[in-house]
Structure formats: C-alpha cells, structure tokens
C-alpha cells in the first residue's frame, strides 16, 4: 500500500474531498494541515502547480484537486465500474468544478460589498440552474452512477456541504429530489459519519 500525505489548509474546503475518500476506504494517510506551525508560504514555491491541496504518494508530489481525487477514487473502487460510468462521473465533477464553482469563487475575489452582493445572487442562480442539470444525471437509486456510490456523489456532497453552505443563500433541494437522496446517502454513510465526528472542527 502506498504511503499517502495530503497537504491542505486547516479547513474542509477543497481538501475535504480527498479526506472523505480516504475515510470511505478506511485508508491511512497523513492529514497535513498548513497553519502557524507549518507555513503554506514555505511550501508554495515547490508545490505542484503552486496550489493546495497536493498529495504526496510514496514521496512524490502531485497537484490539481480533481486529478488527485480521481486517482484516489479509482484506487478505492469509487471511480465507476466502466469507462462509460467514469465518463459520466467526470462530467458531473467538471460541471461542479467549472460551471458551478467558477461563479462561486468569483464572489471571493471581490471586496466591494455591492459588487459582492450581485455576484452572490449570480452564483446562487447559476447553482440552482446546474443543480437542475445534475438532477438528470442521477442514474442510481441514490447515487449518480447505477453501479453505486462513487466519487461523483462525494464531490457533490463536498460542494453542497463544505464549499457552498453557510456562505450563500441555502438551496432548497425539494425541486431536485434525486440530489437530496445523493446527499442523504453520503451523509448517512458510516465511514463518512465517523470521519465527520472525529475531524477538526473548522469554520470552513
């Protein structure tokens, strides 16, 4: 088994996606969090692509959040059962990471309160629109893929619960009952519940 070290901030955010995958697989790893004792500024120059999270596998470092998560998902049998299922999962992930997150992230790049409010509304409307599209991609009973739980469900859960929640107007999931089932299925998973009860409590 490879030796894994995940490097991220002391928060949930983007890093939590991989942490959920490690939890589901009950796979040991070093959960390294930047802070006062370990400065991100010291790591940034040599970090792959200059960003966090990055994953160290047997001493070699790899960047790009979705790529890392896909690698872990495949290693833990959470990638999808066939190439077509993986294509479907990749579409879900890219929709969330690009179509939805781009408008969400835009809010944080602006400090002017008036502008921020406008962008927040845009982010909300955009998210609701794409939730409608994601609803149609749910092929299983309570999972995106027919074959069962996959990282697509985790990426969606991570977005909805860790990245979007608390900062924007809450999204009512009743127009998208399948997405609600996806969220509930992840939230009720024993390994996820166990991780959530043990993990450091952070604002974001």
């Amino acid at each position: 088994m490879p030796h894994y070290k995940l490097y991220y901030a002391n928060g949930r955010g983007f890093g939590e996606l991989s942490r959920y995958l490690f939890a589901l697989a009950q796979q040991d790893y070093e959960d390294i969090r930047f802070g006062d004792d370990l400065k991100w500024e010291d790591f940034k120059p040599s970090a792959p692509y200059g960003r966090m999270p990055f994953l160290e596998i047997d001493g070699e470092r790899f960047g790009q959040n979705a790529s890392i998560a896909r690698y872990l998902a495949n290693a833990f049998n959470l990638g999808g059962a066939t190439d077509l299922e993986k294509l479907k999962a990749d579409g879900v992930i890219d929709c969330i990471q690009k179509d939805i997150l781009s408008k969400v992230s835009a809010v944080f790049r602006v400090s002017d309160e008036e502008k921020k409010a406008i962008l927040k509304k845009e982010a909300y409307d955009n998210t609701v629109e794409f939730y409608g599209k994601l609803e149609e991609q749910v092929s299983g009973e309570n999972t995106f893929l027919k074959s069962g739980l996959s990282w697509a469900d985790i990426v969606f859960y991570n977005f909805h619960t860790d990245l979007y929640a608390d900062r924007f107007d809450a999204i009512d999931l009743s127009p998208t009952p399948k997405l609600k089932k996806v969220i509930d299925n992840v939230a009720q998973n024993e390994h996820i519940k166990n991780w959530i009860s043990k993990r450091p409590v952070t604002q974001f």
Partner: protein
Amino acid sequence: MPEYKLYYGKGKGYGELSRMLFALGELEFTDVRMEDGDEKTKLINNSPYGANPNFEIDGVMYGKNVAIARYVAKKVDLYGKTDIDQLKTDAIVDYVYQDIAGKLLSIYFEKDEEKKAKLIEEGKDFVKNTAVGKLEKQIEGENTFLASGLSWADVAVFNFFHDLYTPFFKEDAFEGSPILKKHSEHVASLPLLKKHLETRAVTEF
C-alpha cells in the same frame, strides 16, 4: 465498435482536442460541426450541461470537453499506462483547461475595450511568467510529458496554445521556452497529427 458522434460548432475551440485524439488513434467518429441556429440551440439546451461539445455514444449523450477527451484518450491508448501516469496527465490537462483557459476565457467575452486591453496584458503575463514555467516542470520524457511517451496531455497543451492562445493573443507563448517550443514542434510533426492539421477545416478559432 460503439458509434461515436462529437457535436460542436464549426470551429476548433473546445472540440478540437477530441478530434485530434480520434485522428491520432485512427478511430472513426462522426464529426458533427453545427451552424449557429435552431437545431444547434435545441441540442445544446437538451444536452447534459447546456453547452457543446457533446458526445454521443450509441445514442446516449455525454458532456464536458475534458471528460469527453479523457474517454477518447483511453480508447486510443493515450491516457497513460499506470495510475500515476494518468494522474499526471489529468493534472496537466486540468491545469490547461481550468487554470489557464478559465483565466483567459473571460477576456474573449469582455466588451469594454479598455478593460479588455488590461486583461489581455495580465493574461499574457500570467501565461509567460507563471503557466509556462509550471508546464515546463512537468516534461519528463523526450518531448513528452510522460517518460513513457506520448499522451493526451501533450496533445492538449499543443492544441490549446497552437489553436487558441496564439491566434487570439497573436503571439507565441513559448517564445521564452525552448523546452515547450520543441515539445510543440514534436507533437505537430507526428505523422497522424500532421495529416490532421493539413486536412482539417480552416477556422479562425
């Protein structure tokens, strides 16, 4: 053999990477290049994520350009042979299509000329002083990102800079990077890709 249909506009844009991969793998597909109009609008509105390219496999529609390209890369054996190599190519392609393209795409749609000019300068600066360096670091083979040889990461970098960046910014992003210049030349010289470049439709973007 499944029936593959790629739906995009008439140009290269975000559809071209998959077209190049099909060409490199000599894999047959239907290259549907749609004129703007009702039919195209209807397809896009009904598609999984409301945008082209879309990819139909045996009657089922799939979306998102990088997801599609990754699937095609797998089918033509250009995804990488190990999971670590695949991770490396995924990171490179996402860096190009998310970090670089994502930053630059908004410039294309900016209406305010003054703002556009400023964004263009910032974009060029980012590419030349940050992105190029990051990509150079990823080259592990002889003119390929992977030590094991050609992969879709090579094609993606070539496609983005040759077909989108250079025509739009009207300059060579790899001017100051002999490594990436050589890389581009190598990719362009691959017989199947060379043939594709010589025979494909000529479009602005």
